[in-house]
């Protein structure tokens, strides 16, 4: 197959699942006739009809609430948030209804909420957020965030087939910027498994989302200075692949936790605690975090560039850590 973009990969994944299972359907704002704000769902309305590709009013609570209801009846809804930033409008439905059904009364809610997240597109405070941690913090939900086209397709398929609610954060910066050749035959990427995107011996960089690409770029630059990075892509935030995280840290003894999300409450803190608790005697240097600062996402390009973690940040911190 010719190389396809990250966006196209997600569409393919959805398409394949809708062909395979008549219970799968999409609902959200502008997903049908318009093909989605980012054109991700383009073509689906023509193929699958109005019944299965539903243009909804601007009602995030109703979109997710209806998805929950349909899922309780055994359907497989994919609810789209136009921008991940709007997911806060249905926070209650997600965290108090969907997340707790199985625990309270044994009822599964096999729905997917897709949310285009992340910055770097001059979107400003309400079109660039990384709200994943509110949901990582809520027991009963699964949260995934693919970084490559391969993972994006495999994970959307797994998410749709999962018996529990999955929030799928697709990084909008990556939509058209990365292109990969994908296998012809069907494949799934399992939820809950991290992936080593680069193996190395000196420093572990643990990350997810668009930052993966910055990490790989940094690795190439650092290799010239004799610093060999290992890069672990989490792919899923909940359930976390603690095993691979600890495996990597125990090997290199030095770790950088990298994410585009703001510092406080970001998953780097959680990972740092796990590493300190369970791999303390394997550490040959302090646990380092590279994250955005604790501010809303600014708009002006100069400000946003300052805000987002950069490849040069990774290189600088890695060199300091290597010299420790």
């Amino acid at each position: 197959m010719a190389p396809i973009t990250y966006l196209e990969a997600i569409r393919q994944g959805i398409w394949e699942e809708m062909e395979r299972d008549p219970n799968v359907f999409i609902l959200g704002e502008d997903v049908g006739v318009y093909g989605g704000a980012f054109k991700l769902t383009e073509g689906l309305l023509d193929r699958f009809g109005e019944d299965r590709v539903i243009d909804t009013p601007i009602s995030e609570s109703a979109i997710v609430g209806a998805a929950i209801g349909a899922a309780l009846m055994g359907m497989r809804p994919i609810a789209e948030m136009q921008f991940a930033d709007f997911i806060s409008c249905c926070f209650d439905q997600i965290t108090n209804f969907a997340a707790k059904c199985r625990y309270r009364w044994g009822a599964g809610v096999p729905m997917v909420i897709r949310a285009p997240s992340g910055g770097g597109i001059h979107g400003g405070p309400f079109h660039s957020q990384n709200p994943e941690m509110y949901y990582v913090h809520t027991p009963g939900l699964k949260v995934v965030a693919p970084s490559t086209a391969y993972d994006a397709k495999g994970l959307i398929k797994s998410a749709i087939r999962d018996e529990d609610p999955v929030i799928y954060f697709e990084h909008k910066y990556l939509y058209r910027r990365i292109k990969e050749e994908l296998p012809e035959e069907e494949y799934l990427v399992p939820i809950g498994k991290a992936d080593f995107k680069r193996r190395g011996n000196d420093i572990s960089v643990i990350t997810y989302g668009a930052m993966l690409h910055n990490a790989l770029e940094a690795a190439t630059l650092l290799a010239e200075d004799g610093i060999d990075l290992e890069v672990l892509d989490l792919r899923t935030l909940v359930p976390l692949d603690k095993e691979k995280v600890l495996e990597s840290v125990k090997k290199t003894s030095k770790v950088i936790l990298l994410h585009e999300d703001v510092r406080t409450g970001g998953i780097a803190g959680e990972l740092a605690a796990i590493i300190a608790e369970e791999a303390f005697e394997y550490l040959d240097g302090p646990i380092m975090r590279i994250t955005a600062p604790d501010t809303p996402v600014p708009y002006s390009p100069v400000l946003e560039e300052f805000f987002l973690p950069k490849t040069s940040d990774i290189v600088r911190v890695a060199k300091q850590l290597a010299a420790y």
Partner: protein
Amino acid sequence: MAANVIMPQMGESIFEGTITRWLKKVGDSVKRDEPLFEISTDKVDSEIPAPASGVLSEIRVKEGETVQINTVVAVIDEQGRAQAPPPTEKAEGPHIAKSEAPSRAKTDKVEATQGVRSSPLVRRIAKVENVNLSELEGTGLGGRITKKDILGYLEERERVAEVTRPIVQQAAEEMAGTDGIETDRIEVVPMSVMRKSIAEHMVASRRTAAHVTTVFEVDMTRIVNLKNQYTQEFLSKEGIKLSYMPFFIKTVSAGLKEFPVVNASIQDTNIVYKKDINIGVAVALDWGLIVPVIKNADEKSFLGLARASVDLAERARKKRLTPEDVQNGTFTITNPGVFGSLLGAPIINQPQVAILCIGAITKRPVVINDAIAIRSMVYLTLTFDHRLIDGAVADQFMASIKVKLESWEEKLF
């Protein structure tokens, strides 16, 4: 069976209630769900029904009293059932969550840091591999010992070990008896109890004390003459053979009185001074070695010492020593000179801090007043524990013994 009547929780934030009126008295019969008492709380006043049928046997909380929720306020004796064990303070019911402070604290020993900058990883490796971090040079930030540094050190150490390993291995195998060779050229015999005990004691002593040996040469001519002069008389008058031992024991006793530290022992970081001077004299046996002790040697006369040493040696050979005979020694004298040894460097008899070794008394040419004379000379060696006794003290002790021996004045009888 007794049924507890409890103060209910009338609202999530309520934690106590007041009894305003009892509707029944002790001894009254009560039907389940029948109103039993009235309460007042912050939120609501309420009539409370009985939880069981029977006879109200006890009222524990009076009208007007305020108690916490779940407190047992009364007891109903349900008819026709055996007495239950005494009711507990709080009624059993759904658990209200208690938070327990984590009782597990990870204790990382401060000793582990060894006072050198490293990292948790490096310290763990050092602990496991028995590395003294102060022996390494750190190449990390600020001279920190890094993972690379310690792994490099271990590699080097391994390389050295590689070379010496075969040699050490063979010795170890032979010693442990794991080399597995038993041919007609080699015979394996298990050790006796005494042999095992001596083996352990010797090695332990070497491990414990800081052994240092000093050698003195003593002119024994005067004492040799005395002995030759009085041997016959001793034998006929006292019935015992006169040897050189009592001369040595007497002078050593005096020396120990002068230098009590040589008669002491060490306990942790304390010096234990002993008032009793109990001198052990090593006796060679056909089957091993034993050190019977002459108690309070400083209080005995020359004759007493002669008798004691002969008696102990005899009893030792006849295996008639008692436990008291070999206990509580504070100083030991060993005498390999009888076998011809000129000079020894013995091992200290724990828990003592010194041991005197007497070599063979031989005639030697020596220089006196710039002329050569033939004198009976002996080498005396003192092995002492340098933890407690410094060289100067040891030598002063020995010098005092030398003087006493060379200028023996005392009467033998």
